[in-house]
């Protein structure tokens, strides 16, 4: 029993941090938001070269996975750097394709392409298949499908090819939300529903890890700002109100992380679904709380489009409800525990 990242896993995270720091993600995000996908796709390929996109693809299909601990390590850094692009959706598609195996004609070709970073994928799940009733309102959007090579739609127990329709703007400028135009049925039946549930769990896990990374970055920049910003003749970080806000943000994030790691470790066990839901609840709440605290500590400057931290503040809110709201995931946890 060793419930901390090992040296190799830590090094993997540090390597990604270095690549992403050099990539100047805020400028990549602003380009992506304007539909200039090239810098974002170049970053996608750099990250693929480190193996990030191979983590959810099994070795048998040309990947390195499934390696859920490495996956959450990577998504934590994707969150810390607010990297734009359908990473979570691609991981979910990889899980879906892997589960469906030979049922899909081009499945192994797509999986290989994903692992190598050649295939950017997206996915629309009008209802989140793993979550219990009451159902989420329908969300017929496939994140960044206009930048993707492969777009899928799961509708009940049908898997369809799909194309990007009209793009809707999100509060998070890095999130472009096209509706999808359904195409041919690629597979149907209970195996699709089961694969979609597995894909959903993996998407939830990736989102939870990303949220913790988003919250971490917000805490980091807020602490730096509180040390530097002077008001009333002293750094605002001297004021107890500011200190306590930031301490609270840290407490929330420190207890979200073990839940994310715990879910990654329970991959493959019957508790995996319950555990990813628990992680998503805590990560959503902790990151959103960190975002509101970051806004309050920064004051007006945090409320502006042009100041970088606002990119993370907006992402925290968008991801708070993406891949299932905290309420939906609480319902699933109770359902798993109490069988109701």
């Amino acid at each position, binding site marked *: 029993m060793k419930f901390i990242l090992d040296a190799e896993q830590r090094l993997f995270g540090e390597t990604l941090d270095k690549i992403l720091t050099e990539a100047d993600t805020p400028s990549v995000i602003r380009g992506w938001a304007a539909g200039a996908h090239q810098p974002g796709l170049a970053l996608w390929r750099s990250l693929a070269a480190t193996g990030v996109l191979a983590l959810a693809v099994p070795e048998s299909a040309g990947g390195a996975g499934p390696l859920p601990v490495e996956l959450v390590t990577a998504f934590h850094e994707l969150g810390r750097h607010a990297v734009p692009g359908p990473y979570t959706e691609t991981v979910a598609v990889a899980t879906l394709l892997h589960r469906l195996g030979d049922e899909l004609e081009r499945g192994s070709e797509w999986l290989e392409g994903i692992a190598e970073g050649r295939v950017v994928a997206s996915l629309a799940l009008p209802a989140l298949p793993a979550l219990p009733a009451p159902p989420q309102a329908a969300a017929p959007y496939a994140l960044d499908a206009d930048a993707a090579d492969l777009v899928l739609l799961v509708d009940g127990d049908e898997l369809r090819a799909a194309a990007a329709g009209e793009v809707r703007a999100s509060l998070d400028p890095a999130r472009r939300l096209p509706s999808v135009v359904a195409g041919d049925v690629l597979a149907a039946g209970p195996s699709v529903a089961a694969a979609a549930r597995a894909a959903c769990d993996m998407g939830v896990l990736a989102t939870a890890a990303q949220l913790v990374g988003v919250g971490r970055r917000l805490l980091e920049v807020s602490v730096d700002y509180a040390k530097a910003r002077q008001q009333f003749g002293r750094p605002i970080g001297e004021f107890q109100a500011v200190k306590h806000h930031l301490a609270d943000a840290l407490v929330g994030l420190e207890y979200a992380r073990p839940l994310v790691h715990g879910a990654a470790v329970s991959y493959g066990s019957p508790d995996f679904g319950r555990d990813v839901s628990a992680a998503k609840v805590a990560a959503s709440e902790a990151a959103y709380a960190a975002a509101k605290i970051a806004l309050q500590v920064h004051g007006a400057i945090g409320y*502006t*489009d042009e100041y970088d931290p606002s990119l993370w503040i907006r992402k925290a809110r968008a991801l708070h409800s993406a891949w299932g709201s905290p*309420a939906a995931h609480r319902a699933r946890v109770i359902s798993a525990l109490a069988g109701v």
Partner: protein
Amino acid sequence: MDLDLSSVAPFRAEVREWLRTHLPAAPLPSLEIEEGFAAHRAWERELYGARLSVVSWPEEYGGRAATPLEWLVFEEEYYAAGAPGRVSQNGINLLAPTLFQHGTPEQLARVLPSMASGEVIWAQAWSEPGAGSDLASLRATATRVDGGWLLNGQKTWSSRAAFADWGFGPFRSDPEAQRHRGLTYLMFPLDAEGITRRPIGRIDGKPAFAELFFDDVFVPDRDVIGEPGAGWKVAMSTTGNERGLTLRSPGRFLAAADRLLDLWRERADPADTALRDRVADAWIKARAYRLKGYETVSRTDDIGAESSINKIFWSELDVTLHETALDLLGPDGELEGDWLEGYVFSLAGPIYAGTNEIQRNVIAERVLGLPRAGR
């Protein structure tokens, strides 16, 4: 003690009827973008035509000398009807009360009617990059010259200044004086020679603020409000007002709570009592804020620092109410739309007009009488 509103029923009926027949057929574009700003200015003129733009002002300036109670009723009807946001709000709520208290008759006669009609839209120019919550650390200067003052320096977070006509705010006129002393309160046209304005995008990208750069901008003496050097006192008469009911009238939250209830009926599973409880809380708090408003207009004493209690309450209510709406919208909550715009707007509430941390200090020290921390 009663809530007998029959005396204001005819006024309420008039406002309701006028709004019913004059409201724009379609919602106006956001007032934080150029097109919407113009549309909202036209709407202000229409309100003014019916003497409904500034109901509580004296008739000579375009109002109808409405009582505070009538003003509350006007606001209830205005927001219940879903009428447009008030693009003139910075002038009407922040400058006008200051002028009524410190302005000369000439200033009142010159400034107020065009403010009431929307012909001149005003922007508040208070904050500076180094002076947000700590307003006393202002550094932009007003230097005495023949017949007036020369402004230099920078202001920021000037709401609506991207498209507004005139600005107002305190400048340091005595470079030797420290902190609260040596400030002078001035008005200036935003297209004056020497002013550069740079719009700043709000968190949803809309240019809701601007930065203003002053390079030897001449302001004649007649545009000084109150005594030169007494700018802090003048400014405080605005903030007292800003923290009271005026900035966010109860009508606004009642209407928002009713819309939230509609959204809940439309979107929610009635068995989801967690969301139901949050909708109930929003409605209960909006009702509390309304009743507190009636209490306030029933009082004859100065509410003073108690206005900080209101600021905390409405700003937190506004955020939680809109968060509840976004949560009701589920995955659609992040999409552009009225609720998201309202949410973005609400997020500024705990920050501006004195952060809620500052307001809590004010309540603790000036209402509860706790000791100030040693400096």
